[in-house]
């Protein structure tokens, strides 16, 4: 039997930017306009076949309200990747992404893979998406425009995360010292592949 690679992804971001909706769209193919606020966190899994490798994504969805952030470490402590979500109609939620990045830099595993999702891209953007993409590139993260409502960009986001985590795990398995391995990743990813042509919000 083929071995399944477990990948732990944690979703972080401001309240009601659509973290839960992204996960439910991805895992259950459902969407609700009135997703209830997440208190603390929930956990869902998705199995996928990635170029012949079986992967189980263990996705941790977390609470957005600021006072819950002190609980963050128990989720991202041993995470392979963090998906930082903001709402493109809410500028402040992008600043929250930046503060999460700072926190992860200090507190999370040092080789954690980062991805940023600008959610609700079925609506008019209040943030400069070029800026977001530049910022993402500067921290070695990918950036995707997503819409849980219209099912845009979500599959791509999680596939990108799975691909990069697998590459990193492979590099580790090939016994490359961790420090140079991370740099290798950076070289591969910098500049990050241009985001898929925006299907909306442009």
């Amino acid at each position, binding site marked *: 039997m083929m071995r399944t690679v477990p990948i732990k992804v944690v979703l972080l971001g401001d309240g009601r930017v659509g973290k839960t909706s992204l996960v439910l769209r991805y895992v259950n193919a459902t969407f609700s306009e009135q997703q209830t606020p997440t208190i603390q966190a929930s956990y869902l899994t998705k199995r996928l076949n990635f170029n012949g490798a079986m992967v189980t994504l263990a996705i941790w969805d977390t609470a957005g309200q600021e006072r819950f952030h002190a609980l963050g470490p128990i989720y991202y402590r041993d995470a392979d990747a963090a998906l930082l979500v903001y709402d493109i109609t809410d500028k402040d939620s992008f600043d929250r992404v930046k503060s999460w990045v700072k926190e992860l830099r200090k507190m999370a595993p*040092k080789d954690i893979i980062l991805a940023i999702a600008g959610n609700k891209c079925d609506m008019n953007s209040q943030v400069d998406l070029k800026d977001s993409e530049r910022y993402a590139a500067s921290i070695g993260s990918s950036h995707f425009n997503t819409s849980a409502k219209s099912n845009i960009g979500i599959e791509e986001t999680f596939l990108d995360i799975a691909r990069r985590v697998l590459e990193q795990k492979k590099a580790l398995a090939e016994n490359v010292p961790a420090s140079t391995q991370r740099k290798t990743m950076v070289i591969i990813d910098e500049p990050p592949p241009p985001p898929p042509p925006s299907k909306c919000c442009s």
Partner: protein
Amino acid sequence: MALDESSKLGWVLRHGTGKGYGWFRKGAKTKLRDLYSFSLEVSEEDAAVLNDLKERVKETARVWRAIEESKGACWYSQPEISSLSDSSLVSSLSVATLANAMHLKKLIRKGIPPSFRPRVWMAVSGTVTQRSTVPDSYYSDLTEAVKDKVTAATRQIDHDLARTFPTHPWLNSPEGHRTLRQILVAYSFRDSRVGYCQGMNYVAALLLLVLKSEEDAFWMLAALLERVLYSDIYSENLYGCHIEQRVFKDLLMKKFPRLAAHLDLIQFDVSLITTEWFLCLFAKSLPTETTMRVWDVLFSEGVKVLFRVALAIFKMKEAELLSTKHVGEAISIVQDTTNRAYDPDILLKVAFEDLGAMTMYIISEHRKKQQPAVVAELEERLQRVNSPRSNRPTQVLL
């Protein structure tokens, strides 16, 4: 549940009491509304449990009405029975009062009928007492004074109104939103240190459904936060919540050392799911009537009830949890158990009969023990997050 040969043919035999017993088609779903108008889609087996529960609730209501007829209205208003474990107080009470209180405590554990809940909750939780210390116009004055103010709390409340039990017909109506908003906003000004914390919305919403009075719901929310629950549970850094989670872990380790060790082994930090239980008082996890039954005892006996119920959930699935290999599996088992705990009596029986002694004194001792660690942890996190530079020299990407 014992399975039979016939389960292969698509039928399941369920052993239980009352109408929860019988043959059910596997996988068939039924739509129904529970006692508080939440719509559910459940298996036929669970639907039978719920129907049986409705009958039992009617029977309980008959018992309570009979008592009221013989003892008079408001017979349950008396010294707070949660203090009965305090022996000095017990000796000061007359035998008759004491007998009455013990009787009430037993009755409440069997469940307060929905029609009696508003009055009984207000009486036994101390809400009536708390409210009597301020002028009658307190609530209307407060709501009037704050009605146009905008704060971080009111903004967050506005975000959450339409997302609080959106499937409930009244809570999802403009009237429901307006009422819930008023309560939460008023409370955020009553205690600006707490402001508004997600979780309070679910609690306030269920209080509203039961009490059917905005002002009563406000006062019960206040009594809960200020008298029943541990202080600072919802405060800015969730200090009280962190303490309760650590206390719960201590108790789990003490009561079920084997289970605690196993969960530790599979790296299941139980606070991943129990935080929600303690912040929403199970409103988001257990079926409505089961939540209400937990609240019945919470208001009458105090916060130790939350620990008992949380431990009972783990106890009920101890064997299954011991055979789990990873955290996801364990979480699914626990969540499935809470989501389908349609029979409150099964859960409460475990909580009150199968866990041994657990007094408020023990809980306070554990809280005291955990305080320094929580203070240190919160401070350390603040320092690291606010420090200008990364602690990680290897981090070269920024």
